[in-house]
């Protein structure tokens, strides 16, 4: 829960984000929250809303706007994911998502560096920044001046866990090792991009041409906190359909059913090359305020309602 002073800081952050994108010729969109069909994702549990679902991210509708001819769009909206509560999770949370036609995931990484530098400069606690582009977080400084660290997923498993990522995938404990051995080490001195995820962990990301085992997906970490997830968009409807069917199969094993978003698949080829990214606004606000729990960065938490 935020104090009036904290609410002002959050408001300043939201305004600075909008300003950043307006200055670069993006348009702000506000797509529906209630959708009759969602992107099938085996690890997300949506809330039902009568005969619809509350969206778990604005990805589906925003990509349809790209297909309709928009080239640079952003959105700040609430998203809903059932059964997610913790220090870094609330079932209802605020996401910033943006797309840029003609870009790939490396272009987005560069933009993340620029955007975060701007926001840290403008929106940290007044006493929280030094002139040299540093983020004060708890007992230390994190250098946000580019360039940031970049490491492939395979390198990170090798370096921090001494393991081969493909063996970890076969053993089925990728998430566990990522969370316990790798994430806490990332973004401690400067922000870190983890990139080139195994293709089965990037259902909507384009397969790399250089290495077909990985998808062009990245995650941004600051102070061990996963802050943003971006990728080069997969726009091949046949491959996307197969990836969705695989997710639906995993859902089926869990006793859940999902439908294919046919309108989305039909419009996918109209997008062309594009890259998109989602960034957790509550987590960013938390980091800028030097907090360790997102409940200290939102106007309310559910338990107070």
């Amino acid at each position, binding site marked *: 829960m935020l104090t009036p002073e904290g609410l002002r800081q959050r408001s300043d952050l939201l305004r600075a984000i909008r300003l950043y994108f307006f200055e670069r010729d993006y348009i702000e969109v506000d797509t529906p929250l209630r959708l009759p069909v969602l992107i099938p*994702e085996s*690890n997300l549990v949506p809330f039902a809303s009568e005969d619809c679902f509350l969206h778990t991210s604005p990805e589906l509708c925003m990509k349809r706007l790209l297909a309709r001819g928009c080239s640079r769009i952003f959105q700040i909206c609430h998203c809903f994911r059932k*059964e*997610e*509560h*913790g*220090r*870094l*999770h609330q079932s209802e949370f605020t996401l910033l998502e943006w797309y840029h036609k003609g870009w790939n995931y490396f272009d987005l990484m560069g933009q993340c560096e620029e955007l975060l530098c701007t926001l840290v400069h403008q929106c940290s606690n007044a006493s929280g920044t030094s002139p040299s582009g540093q983020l004060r977080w708890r007992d230390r400084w994190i250098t946000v001046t580019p360039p940031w660290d970049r490491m492939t997923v395979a390198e990170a498993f090798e370096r921090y866990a001494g393991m081969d990522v493909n063996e970890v995938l076969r053993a089925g404990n*990728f*998430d*566990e090792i*990522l*969370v*316990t051995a790798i*994430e806490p080490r990332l973004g401690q001195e400067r922000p870190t991009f983890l990139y080139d*995820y195994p293709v089965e*962990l*990037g*259902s909507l990301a384009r397969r790399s041409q250089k290495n077909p085992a990985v998808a062009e997906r990245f*995650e941004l970490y600051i102070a061990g906190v*996963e802050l943003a*997830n971006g990728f080069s968009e997969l726009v091949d409807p046949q491959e996307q359909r197969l990836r969705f069917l695989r997710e639906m199969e995993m859902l089926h094993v*869990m006793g859940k059913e999902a439908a294919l978003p046919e309108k989305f698949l039909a419009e996918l080829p109209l997008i062309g090359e594009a890259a998109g990214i989602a960034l957790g606004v509550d987590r960013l606000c938390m980091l800028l305020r030097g907090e360790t729990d997102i409940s200290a960065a939102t106007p309310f938490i559910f338990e107070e309602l």
Partner: protein
Amino acid sequence: MYTASDLRKGLKIQIDGEPYIVTEFDFSKPGKGQALYRTKMRNMITGVQFTQTYRSNDKFDRPNLEERNMQFLYAQDDEYHFMDTASFEQIFLTKEQLGDNLSFLIDNMEVQVLFFGDRPIDITLPTFVNLEVTVADPWAKGDTSGSDTKPVTVQTGFQLQVPPFVEQGDKIQIDTRTGTYITRVKE
């Protein structure tokens, strides 16, 4: 049944036929990944602790736990006998099971006994108990040593720090959660 999403600090669950209490809990979920429920648990019978990571589809039985009001009757060897104040049924717990509770337990005290099925496994004392001071140094008026507490022993053998004016034979109120002095009581 509980599912992993019910896990939180303080929840009591049953694993392999034994009751456990969650003592630490952390939810994590990497982007596009699975929800992981990292927990530390204590066996409510043996006290043994362990850590375990659960996933969304893990399920747990609810342990059959019940608290009953009982009165402490007497101790014989290492067995501490209690009586149900409603049914007059008598049971006992061992010295080991009672652990630190013995610092505050006196005859006729009413406590909550926790049962796992038919088996008594733990007790909860009243938050505040009144105990008699059995050993205390006399209050030296005009003591300028600067110390504002002194050690005393109460009837159970428990020792604690109290203000200097507390004397042998006084009854004092103690917080059983912390073992600290609250006030002197007149009875």
